[in-house]
């Protein structure tokens, strides 16, 4: 198979991977004894006490900082892959270029580090 046709396998993976759990859970539902519904079973678990207030509350901004940093560095990584593939044909130019690229991003990381964006729940006290 040519490389392009390999993607058919990937598509099959997605389809089978999506169907397989559905099938399994369906088979399991056939094997189970009939349901005995009781109201207490369907309560949310909070260590045997009723929970106070909803669970869907605001969450701290800390998580957002990590997500933001992740996006930035992920994009950087995506740019580094073509560099890695075509490295040989560029010689010294590629080396210098990658050093500059990474230096700029390392500077960004150092800035985030210094500003406390990498602290979990402590930097914002």
């Amino acid at each position, binding site marked *: 198979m040519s490389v392009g046709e390999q993607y058919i396998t990937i598509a099959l993976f997605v389809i089978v991977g999506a169907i397989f759990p559905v099938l399994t859970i369906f088979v399991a539902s056939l094997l189970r004894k009939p349901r005995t519904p009781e109201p207490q079973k369907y309560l949310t678990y*909070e*260590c*045997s*006490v*009723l*929970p*106070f*207030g909803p*669970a869907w*509350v*605001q*969450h*701290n*901004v*800390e998580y957002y900082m990590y997500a933001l940093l992740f996006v930035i560095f992920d994009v950087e990584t995506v740019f580094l892959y073509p560099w890695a593939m075509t490295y040989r044909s560029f010689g010294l130019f590629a080396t210098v270029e990658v050093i500059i690229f990474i230096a700029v991003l390392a500077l960004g990381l150092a800035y985030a580090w210094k500003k406390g964006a990498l602290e*979990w*729940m402590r930097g914002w006290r």
Partner: protein
Amino acid sequence: MAEEKPAKEEKVEEAQEVKHELLDTLKSKFGEKILEAKLRRPRRLQVRIKGEDLYPVAEFLKNSGFDHLSCISGVDYEDRIEAVYHIWSYPRGELMQINAELPRENPEIASLVPLYRAADWHEREAYDMVGIIFKGHPNLKRMLLPESFKGHPLRKDFKTEPMSWYSEGEAEMWETQVEVSPPEEGETETMVLNIGPQHPSTHGVCRLVTTLSGETVVKIEPVIGYLHRGVEKIAEKRTYPQFLPLTDRMDYISSITNNLAYVLAVEELLGVKVPERAEYLRVILSELQRIANHLMFIAAFGADLGAWTVMMYGFREREMVLDLMEQVSGQRLLYNFLRIGGLKEDVPEGWVENVRNFLRVLPERLADYKTYFYNNEIFIKRCEGVGVLEPELAIELGVTGPMLRASGVARDVRKDDPYSIYDRFDFEVVTEEAGDTLARFNVRFREIFESLNIIEQALNDLPEGEVRSPEVPKVIRPPKGEAYSRIESPKGELAYYIVSDGKSPNPYRVKIRSPAFCNLSAFPHYATGEIIPDMIVNFASVDIVMGEIDR
């Protein structure tokens, strides 16, 4: 050590004068208000006043050096209710008991929370059990019983028939309300998380209602009483020897120490002297229990950190101690081995050799633990600097035991207020300076070695003889009086306050001052401001056992 013993005796004799001096000062300052003041025995003072005069007397005592509020009990006599305060003075080394008389129809008394922060939970419990109303208490709710409970169980006129306490079939847990206040400007909402009774890392059924902002803990409120069995009420219907098995079930991890505290109090009331061999064996058994308890602490601590291996190893070492105890008493956990006046029976043949063997084997095994913990950077980083408890705050909150010693305060009941024959042994009080979780762990770890030391000394001096005092009568009816025995249980200061009315074979009132109760009351004060994993580790380092807290 040799200089200390005669000095102590002198101090006792001088103390007669010194204490009389304190009592005289009290009488001269307060005059008519002091109804009675006496020295029951060395290091036990007693003062009787009326309820309304409590606050000035307590303030005077606090300024005279009585800084550790040990226990507050409520006792219901026919014609009056008494609030009994036990306050220990670290500088002076003596205990003051204040009996404050209150009229039965209106038992109101001033709250001591402004003076002693440790009074908080004790007063709530006295309100819960006996119905004494403490004016000025910040949060006078029930402690051990649900909010909707009607009546005060430890009153003598409380009916103990089966009744339904819950309104219309709804269980109490649905009714506990917590106010969730809306967030202030610019702050994120807080979430109230219930780290509830059924959770793998609250040791036993303790419920912590935590208010979180993100993952930072803003407020913790422990809710206890899920294991409340009413032991103090049961005591009033059992004879003195019949109550002994119940004491095992308080701190079920180290049962002998509970037995010991109870038995010491009754022996003080009776005035019997325990034979020498029994005393030495009691010390050996108590120290074995201390080792077992600290090993269990290490195991549970490892489990909370996610180090399951340590948990298994800790239990394996604890099995060695449990084997020794099984040879002696036939039981692995709840021994019921001490008796009023000595022990149940003598130890079997060959037991002493087994203990010596154990003393030899354990330090080698513990060397493994040292590598596991102290070479593990993850462990050190998780525990260092977490949950720092300042020494002044610790004393103020009534913390005792390894928690207090980890904050640098070198106080140990075995040294300050020696009971049994502990003054004959040479051991040091293990302290650490930092006051954080790692320090608490270190203190308990090093205490194991001190206990091994004490056992070895006791084994070397073990005399022959009988193990039960012949003076103890068949039916135990101690003369009218009160006794307060304090011991150093592995978790802290364990004390029993027993009132005997001289006529009946049952105790009139038994009040148990459990160390874990007071240590837990201190927990919310220093554990806020951390994130959840830190709080879990903090909680593990308090080393609680719910049987003792809830009784």
